[in-house]
């Protein structure tokens, strides 16, 4: 069972995604901003991180850059979740060090494929 960390500030998005992943048998943890996301990555050691980019306190790009600069956390794959319409965000996410990206609204089968590829 893969351990997944969802870093997302929108409660509804968090609830929906975690509920769907739990039903698929994943072990899911939640963080609500970039700073908490980094903390959870250290404590929980997830197999994959689903990182929203527009986050409060510390945004997803900064959190991703910091995670990739950390020798321990850099090994954890990060899938950046960006708004469907904002192409520029995808490019920024990859530049920040994200291993993969997916769009919101989420297409679950496509996301699962990406999760399983790590």
């Amino acid at each position: 069972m893969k351990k997944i960390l969802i870093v997302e500030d929108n409660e509804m998005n968090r609830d929906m995604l975690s509920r769907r992943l739990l039903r698929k048998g994943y072990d899911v943890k939640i963080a609500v901003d970039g700073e908490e996301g980094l903390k959870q990555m250290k404590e929980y050691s997830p197999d994959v991180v689903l990182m929203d980019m527009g986050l409060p306190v510390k945004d997803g790009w900064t959190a991703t850059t910091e995670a990739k600069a950390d020798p321990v956390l850099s090994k954890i794959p990060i899938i950046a979740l960006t708004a469907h319409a904002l192409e520029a965000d995808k490019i920024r996410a990859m530049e920040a060090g994200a291993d993969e990206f997916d769009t919101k609204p989420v297409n679950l089968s496509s996301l699962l494929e990406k999760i399983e590829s790590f």
Partner: protein
Amino acid sequence: MLRKIRYLLFLSLTTRAVFPYLLLIFVMGVVVTFGMLSYFAGLFSEDALRAEGIDNLLGGKVIDSFWWSLKHVLDPGSFSENYGAPFEVIIFALINSIFGLVLTGGLIGLIVNSLQNALELAKLGASNIVEEGHLIILGWNRKGPSLLRQFFSLKNSQRVVILSRSSPEEVKTSLKSEGLSKRNQQLLILKGEATSNAVLDRIGVSKSAHVIILAEGLGHEDAFSDVNTINSLMRIGGLQPNIKGPNISAEIVDAERLGIAKIASTTHPLVCTSLLVSKTMVQCARNPGYASVYKKLFSINELDFELVPCGKIDGALFADACLMVSNATVIGVSWDKKLEDGSLKRVTALNPEPDYDLAGDDQLVVINRRGSRVIVNTEAKAKNRSGLTELSERPNLNKVIIFSSNPNLPAIVSELALNSSSMINITIACRKAETVVDNLRDWISINNPTSINSLTLEPFEFDLTQRWSLDEIDIFSYDSILILADESEANVDADSSTALILLILEGVVKRGGTLPPIVVELLSSKTRSVLKNSTIIDSVISTEFVSSMLLQVVRNPFLESIYSELLSAGGIEMGFRQLDNFSIEGTHICYSELQSRAFEKNELIIGYQIGDGENAIVELNPEKEAFKNLNLQDKLIVLSQQLYT
């Protein structure tokens, strides 16, 4: 000494209710004793005994004297029975009778006065309400009459108790002015403070079925109205904490206080006036003609929101489930989320992704016709689902002018900024415009700092009582005009100000040009009928929307999760889509085909609009067969996906 006696008298009269009666008995005793002195004036002499009213049956001593004197005090008419008695006796009888008249008058006055006081107190809410299952309205404002009108339209026999700081007469006058009978036998109108436990107890809050709290006060300057509402919420929660009390819904005027109100009331739905008005007005500005959709959606008589268990369709995809329900419209999914403290919270997701796989403990949220049973055909499936193609283009506003200022203004500006995908310029045309704009900038920098960079605010001094020329601005260059209900002037009706602004705008049109869509906030539906021929595209009758929502969520608290999804900033939004947006080929339009194509844009069809403007027909949750009669020029009403950030 005299001053001291006067003070003691004052003290006793004001602090002891029984004192006036004791004083009356004491004076009566003195007068009767005085009358008994007539014994020494020959009361039982031979001459006196000839008179009809003088007897010495017990020996003509103290008791007979007492009886004779008392009779004159209590019954002044007995004076005439002394005819033939000695002159001195008649004088005593006369004095006794005169004092008797005064004392009897005083006694009657006291009794009448205390009865009147008791009745007045009863009217003002001092009497106990012996009711069960009643509806209580705490507080009173302009939404009250609309709330009652909608409640009475349900033909419910529930007793309604109104408790407010306003006098019962004021409440009755406001009911009469809105065409509601003030003599309705279902109504009990009381005066009192909804922030007092004793008063809440007296009106039977814990035995009532529903409590609706309206914000007291009439707006702008009454900054404490939400404080009283929050206070009442806490007190009701504390009355009988271990017993499931009534369903409660409360109106919160200021969005800034919503957070505190939610702490005070974790389980009861709250309706935030400024959020509701801002969301509806901005959506109407973005989608002209949209007010009629909201009106239908909030209508208490036309649509029912229901939860349908997903046990039988466990594992089905949301897109398929939408087509499985053949006689109602599926709009989302709902479930109970377990919180860390073990309590359950109702979560509702409107228009989730089409590939959302339903769990057995999920429930479908459907719009159903009243009294109809939802039919689920488990065989149905969505057709041609080829995944997400492209989201529909969203209407965008770049330049907006807002006339008048009221407490909803910050939320409206914020909502406009949140819904704009580019830089938005907003002109605020009102009295003391510069100050209003400065305050707005402060509000936004604190409450919505991310919007401040995508927004420019410009003040434009526009005072209906002084300077109201529009010559200095190019009104035709705006994408939308919003006119808010200005309640800041106690002597000027807000709707009258709105009507005047509309007349000024119509005057500008006569000089040449076409006005952009106008959205107005009205406080009375009667004004809408008066303005029927004006240039208004949409009117948001805020009193009706808010009262309707309060009534809906108090009767069915789960609706709060639906409305908060529909009305939260940046959340799910409704939109119009031209039918040809769905690449319909030929003339045969089939609902399942339309919906399958809508899923490719992550949209959910909830109804349609035929025609435009005032004569447009809006249908929410229509019969599926009715889609066959649509033309390519008609519009679909859809729930579109959340604008993700």
